[in-house]
């Protein structure tokens, strides 16, 4: 539903983590249910596209599992798992046009996949070889952002630029529930609203910011904030890939028609630890995790596609093989990575010549050479 009301009295009943009142078109068991606001946006979604959604979610999950495994094996320094959040990542990315530009956080592996990332793109930063592995212009994605919420302003500024260029390109900022507490994220709403910038804010409310439940950040549904800034919002079931496509299309369409920013809160769940360094058993109940396994986004779409006859065992096999192939490629890209020459440390600090730093580089190179004698 379009979020137009945030009465404190109404809110007292709602809870920032509730998923029941979020909009969806697929029930957890895959049953298709109508939603007047979402349905129009996916009326034309072909079986082919739905299968692609399913496939990309499976690929994302497989890739994510590979990231965890590579970290366990000492090949990566760290990994931030996205298991459970495949629908919102893949679904929203699916709705994008090539010219759109995404500003992801560190956990948006499914978004990168949707943008056409190459195997090495997923892992080199986590391995510590590069701060950002991919070329932002190739996949139209900014480097993954670690400073929580900072990218929301970058997306807004990029959108202001797109607007000035007279293009219909849209910027998308991805961030979590925790990020909504940051000043930057709120300032982004102010700027986006004030300038009617063609930007979409996608908040993946995965219920946790490391060990803090979403209720530390918000008492009432996060989607209720944007309207106060003049930004219409939708609160959707983030484990329903079709709802995610629909909401994203609604938002992108508004942006392309010059109606400015929109906000999407996708209610989902972080099934794994915050990162491979984290131990969630210290702060959350197994019951809660268990309950969310029954809302799995992949099983949900799979059940629907099977019931509708759009996907069968052989299709699933094919997807599983593609997923394994991707994982193998990622693994190869990771293990095959070599660390660059230390002299390159000094490169790209500045785009233009910088004498003192060039001297520091020369001195360090000379110093290193001393060991080779």
């Amino acid at each position, binding site marked *: 539903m379009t979020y137009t009301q945030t009465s404190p009295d109404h809110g007292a009943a709602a809870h920032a983590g509730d998923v029941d009142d979020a909009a969806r078109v697929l029930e957890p068991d895959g049953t298709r249910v109508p939603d007047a606001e979402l349905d129009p946006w996916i009326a034309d979604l072909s079986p082919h596209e739905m299968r692609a959604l399913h496939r990309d979610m499976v690929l994302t999950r497989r890739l994510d599992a590979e990231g965890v495994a590579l970290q366990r094996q000492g090949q990566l320094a760290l990994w931030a798992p996205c298991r459970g959040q495949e629908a919102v990542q893949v679904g929203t990315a699916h709705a994008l046009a090539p010219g759109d530009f995404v500003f992801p956080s560190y956990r948006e592996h499914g978004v990168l996949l949707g943008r056409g990332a190459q195997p090495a793109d997923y892992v080199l930063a986590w391995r510590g070889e590069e701060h950002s592995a991919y070329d*932002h212009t190739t996949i139209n994605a900014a480097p993954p952002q670690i400073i929580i919420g900072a990218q929301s302003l970058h997306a807004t*500024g990029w959108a202001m630029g797109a607007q000035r260029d007279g293009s219909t390109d849209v910027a998308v900022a991805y961030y979590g529930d925790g990020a909504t507490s940051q000043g*930057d994220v709120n300032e982004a709403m102010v700027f986006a609203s004030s300038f009617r910038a063609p930007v979409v804010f996608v908040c993946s409310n995965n219920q946790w910011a490391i060990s803090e439940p979403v209720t530390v950040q918000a008492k009432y549904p996060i989607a209720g904030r944007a309207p106060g800034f003049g930004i219409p919002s939708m609160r959707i079931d983030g484990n329903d890939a079709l709802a995610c496509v629909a909401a994203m299309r609604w938002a992108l369409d508004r942006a392309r028609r010059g109606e400015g920013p929109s906000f999407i809160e996708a209610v989902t769940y972080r099934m794994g630890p915050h990162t491979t360094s984290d131990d969630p058993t210290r702060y959350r109940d197994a019951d809660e995790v268990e309950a969310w396994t029954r809302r799995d986004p992949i099983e949900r779409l799979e059940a629907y596609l099977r019931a509708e006859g759009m996907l069968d065992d052989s299709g699933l096999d094919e997807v599983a093989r593609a997923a394994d192939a991707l994982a193998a490629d990622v693994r190869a890209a990771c293990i095959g990575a070599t660390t660059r020459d230390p002299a390159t440390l000094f490169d790209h*600090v500045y785009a233009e010549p910088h004498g003192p730093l060039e001297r520091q580089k020369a001195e360090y190179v000379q110093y290193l050479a001393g060991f080779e004698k």
Partner: protein
Amino acid sequence: MTTLTLGAAINAGLSKALETDDRVLLMGEDIGKLGGVFRVTDGLQQRFGAQRVVDTPLAEAGIVGTAVGLALRGYRPVVEIQFDGFVYPAFDQIVCQVAKLHYRSSGRIRMPLVIRIPWAGGVGAAEHHSESPEAYFVHTAGLRVVAASNPQDAYVMLRQAVASDDPVIFFEPKRLYHAKGEVDLEADLADAPPMHLARVAQEGTDATIVTYGAQVRTALDAALAAEDEGLSLEVIDLRSLSPIDMNTVAASVRKTGRVVVTHEAAREAGVGAELVASITEQCFEYLEAPPQRVTGHDIPYPPSKLEKHHVPDLDRILFAVDRVMERGTGSSAASAAAIEGGVR
């Protein structure tokens, strides 16, 4: 040559930049109709329109953060921070994003951003309106930091800053906004000295004063007063604070063997510390006396009625000159007190 105030010279530089490159745009609080609280952007919105001279919401992180996004889209934003003391809300965006994105992306992303900051004290302003935050930015790799001390440099360096593909923190000494000087508006940028070079503002042989921004004037006044004492002081206007042009500084120190560094910012880990450290490292055998720092005290900027005791003046510089000359301290300073009235 045209006679312009420093403020008008920057206005002319901005105007030229907007004219020359349609990817340049200005952003800030009150820079549009009002023309900025110092009128530095006067008339620009009227001339270039509200899409290119943008009054933003009141949020500095927002201004700099959206400018980062605009740069990613191919624009060259010139951001105004209304006063020196209001840059801190944008510090995270400057340090983690503006300064680092080129490096973080292995050179694929460029950040041709200029952040203009009306800067420093001596104008009787309220709290938080007289800050000297330059050392924070000098310590931050990835940024270039410059400070103009006269209208000609202000005009040329502003245009160089806009043309640079690196982010530039551009400090404007607000107590010189109304100071006049000759500006060559037609000169070719390619002929101008590059932004990163220091300038010998006055030649001398007995000791070197290294400084920047509004303190250049004070240093020149001190050099004039010292002449009466028979002292020949060389004054170096750094212009660029990061990188520092140590070639020019070291050449002077090797010549004079004595050096006074002066700035308005606090002493502890300030730009003066870097200068004294680098001078010592590079000119050790030429130094005839320990370098002296004449800086703001290590205190928050004081209430304006007391600021004349904080911002280093002619006397304090001469007092330090006496020390590096190893003369009985206080003599020339006290005698110079007579002409102090005309200095600021």
